[in-house]
């Protein structure tokens, strides 16, 4: 039963919202102490909302798209009265003072928010180990990191603790943990989903997106949260496709005639066992009628430095408000080493005497990458390849920053170019999930969702 089918059951009162909340609460109670996917739970509020939805259904009243579905939210998205800590001691006492636009929309569609999920501190990481509240365990591969920074949301889905979850993706923070946990994660086109209420990592790259166990869940969540927010300047005016109508029907047909671009440099930087699984997936899609085109991307080495320079400067700027006056602690005095490193680097390279050399260069490099990505996508529908070049490491192992950053080499491109990208499970290497990444043209989010749906059906 996929999420869409479950949502129908609830609407037909064959399964109640109350039962749904009950079941997930039990699972969370049982598994969360080991997994640490959720940092905060509000069961009572979820139950109350569930009862209200069931009551409305009983009375034959209209309910929203997400009615009765249980949802986890990453701890960097404002939800009123939950602790929005960004997994940092800086904000351990900050209670969400307003609802982010996505949260408003979820509530308007009768989604039930059950709690806040774990993450890397201020989303600056790829392992969820830098959380002030301790690491999250990977439910699909216990003992290994779940990836990050939205590791809590991915793990919550993988462990069956909720129907849907939200994460944020700045350089892969949704797709990376989706890949490691064997679930589906989707980063929409930059501007397709409002960022109002999302705590900043790098404003020009950040994007909120959904996690789910199947594509129908991604579709349902995306059509609930996407669309212009007149109160967020980078949000775009676009016709949101009826994503949930596009999945399920004739899923296998959609790959017929689709042009898939394979970038050889993506494969080159990726560990062999992962490449093998990805190649197999591509073969399967070809069998389903997809056409494969080989492409070359010469700027892959430019992506990480560009990404990190922008990330440092924008994080430095965004964290100036945590000066110790309004939220208790000054960020530099309490944060973890990765956040501190980025703030210091950001402060350093944005100095008057250096900004021309570093920050402005990074912005120029970014336009170059954008142009090149546009060229790559010109004659294909999607780019397909691995999501992460290597398998997750053991929780607690020591990695140099550059080793850590290497996890992001295949995901940052989508953020730099503002294009949509999703990751879903392609297979396993010794029981560890491996994700297949699909990237598309700006605002062609639907194409990725349809292709993911087809691929998912093919493996059933």
């Amino acid at each position, binding site marked *: 039963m996929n999420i869409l089918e479950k949502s129908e059951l609830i609407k037909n009162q064959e399964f109640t919202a109350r039962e749904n909340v009950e079941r997930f609460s039990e699972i969370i109670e049982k598994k969360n102490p080991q997994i640490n996917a959720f940092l905060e739970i509000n069961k009572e509020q979820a139950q109350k909302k569930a009862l209200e939805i069931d009551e409305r259904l009983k009375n034959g009243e209209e309910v929203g798209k997400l009615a009765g579905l249980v949802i986890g939210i990453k701890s960097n998205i404002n939800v009123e009265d939950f602790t929005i800590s960004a997994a940092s001691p800086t904000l351990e006492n900050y209670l969400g003072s307003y609802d982010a636009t996505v949260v408003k929309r979820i509530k308007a569609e009768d989604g039930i928010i059950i709690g806040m999920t774990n993450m890397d501190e201020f989303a600056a990481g790829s392992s969820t180990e830098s959380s002030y509240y301790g690491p999250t365990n990977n439910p699909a591969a216990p003992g290994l990191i779940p990836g990050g920074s939205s590791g809590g949301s991915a793990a919550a889905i993988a462990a069956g603790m909720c129907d849907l979850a939200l994460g944020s993706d700045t350089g892969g923070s949704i797709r990376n943990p989706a890949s490691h946990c064997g679930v589906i994660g989707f980063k929409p086109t930059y501007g397709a989903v409002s960022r109002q209420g999302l705590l900043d990592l790098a404003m020009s790259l950040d994007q909120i997106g959904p996690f789910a166990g199947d594509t129908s869940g991604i579709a349902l969540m995306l059509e609930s949260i996407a669309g212009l927010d007149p109160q*967020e*300047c980078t949000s775009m005016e676009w016709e949101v496709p009826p994503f949930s109508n596009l999945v399920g029907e004739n899923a296998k047909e959609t790959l017929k005639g689709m042009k898939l671009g394979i970038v050889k440099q993506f494969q080159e930087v990726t560990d062999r066992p992962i490449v093998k699984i990805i190649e197999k997936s591509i073969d399967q899609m070809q069998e389903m009628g997809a056409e494969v085109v080989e492409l070359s991307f010469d700027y892959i080495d430019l992506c990480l430095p560009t990404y990190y320079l922008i990330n440092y400067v924008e994080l430095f700027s965004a964290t100036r408000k945590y000066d110790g006056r309004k939220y208790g602690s000054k960020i530099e005095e309490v944060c973890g080493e990765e956040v501190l490193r980025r703030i210091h680097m950001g*402060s350093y390279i944005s100095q008057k005497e250096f900004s021309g050399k570093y920050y402005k260069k990074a912005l120029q490099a970014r336009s170059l990458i954008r142009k090149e990505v546009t060229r790559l996508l010109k004659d294909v529908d999607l780019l397909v390849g691995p999501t992460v070049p290597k398998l997750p490491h053991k929780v607690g192992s020591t990695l140099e920053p550059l080793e850590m950053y290497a996890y992001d080499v295949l995901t940052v491109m989508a953020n730099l170019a503002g294009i949509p990208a999703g990751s879903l499970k392609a297979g396993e290497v010794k029981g560890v999930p491996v994700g297949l990444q699909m990237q598309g043209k700006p605002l062609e989010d639907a194409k990725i969702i349809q292709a993911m749906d087809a691929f998912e059906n093919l493996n059933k």
Partner: protein
Amino acid sequence: MKCGLEIHVQLETDSKLFCDCRTNYQDTPANNNVCHVCLNQPGAKPYPTNEKALEGALKIALMLDCKIAKEITYFMRKHYNYPDLSSGYQRTSIPIGYEGDLNGVRIREVHMEEDPGQYKPDTGTVDFNRSGIPLIEIVTEPDMKSPEEARKFLKELIRVLEYSGNARGEGTMRADVNISLEGGKRVEIKNVNSIKGAYKALKFEMVRQKNLLKRGVEVTQETRAFLEAQMITVSMRLKEEAEDYRYIPDPDLPPMKSDDSQVQGIKEKMPEPPHIKTKRFMDEYHLAEEHAKVLTSELELADTYEEVVKEIEAEFAALWMRDELKRVIYYNKMTFMESEITTSQIIELLQMLKDKEITTKAGQRIIEQLPQSSKSPRSIAEEMGLVGIVNEDEVLNAAKKAIEENPTTVEDYHQGKKAAMNFLVGQVMKLTRGKAEPGNTVKILRDLLS
């Protein structure tokens, strides 16, 4: 000396620059006009830039004869750490206008900014009601040569801002004043909050620097603060300690393109700037500069004057409007607009004066009744019994009677006491119920007494 100014004034808008909060920060309890955006709560993003603020800034730039940036406009983040700055940076736009001019002082640029909150060091609290209110900043070239010139410039600038209808007045002004003397480095004075303050700060600084130079002490480049209460400046920081604001383009606010038709639309609608209007009044209506300035001191007054002169001779209208009308509205502590005196009231009154239906004296008494009155001057005149100028014979008879009845005063007059004539004129006025022309009465009395 050379002096340049950077002047900040609040733009007049109902809501703040990047959110929907009201801007009446002075009439509301502390931290009442706030939301997550202007408090810069975690995750808050600016709403789209307030169109009215942008339009106001464009209009002011145009009135200052600036070229308008054809390219895109965007906001930069200027980072600094201060309790009143809830985000840790101030959003400040790149120049909207540049290379302007106001009476020979070159305007380097005009741009927009957001106001920070208000920090009260004594209580250690911050009121964020002001946070996010749009400001306009006007930067001049160092073209003023004395404190007097700077003061004159600022007065004129405030008049332009008032004319625009898009800015709040001197009350919201904050200025940075740059001064350099021959042989010394540039000193910047911060914390100047009024025209008088700018003048006093410059005066003080000029004397201080002159004394240093006289003693052979170097005047170093530094930033000083003006202490309004003491009218002195004190050192804040030297050049080496200058802050690095780490400017970056604000990623939350995509660039905006100012479109030609908008600029054209503003140009068509914007009022003629007061300094240009003053010059035109001098040429067109042959007024002295002083008089032209009085008549253009307020846009509504200037507009009314131009309506009036379509019916009434310009010099006569100017005389009445700059003397009597100004006197009355000044006495009532109003602006001309607040007095609600209409063009037709003025025309009717001046017409009655011209036609000698009333005396000058009566005219003065009628004009005093006009503020916030919808009555016509004629009906006021009738109510008060002021209509009509008595003819020569009546005045002559009254004068004769006054002389007859006051022999001692006549005696005094012959002995050269000036007050005697005033007394006799008063008597004639009394006898004619104020309808005699004072000038004419004096003449008649003189003739009779000689």
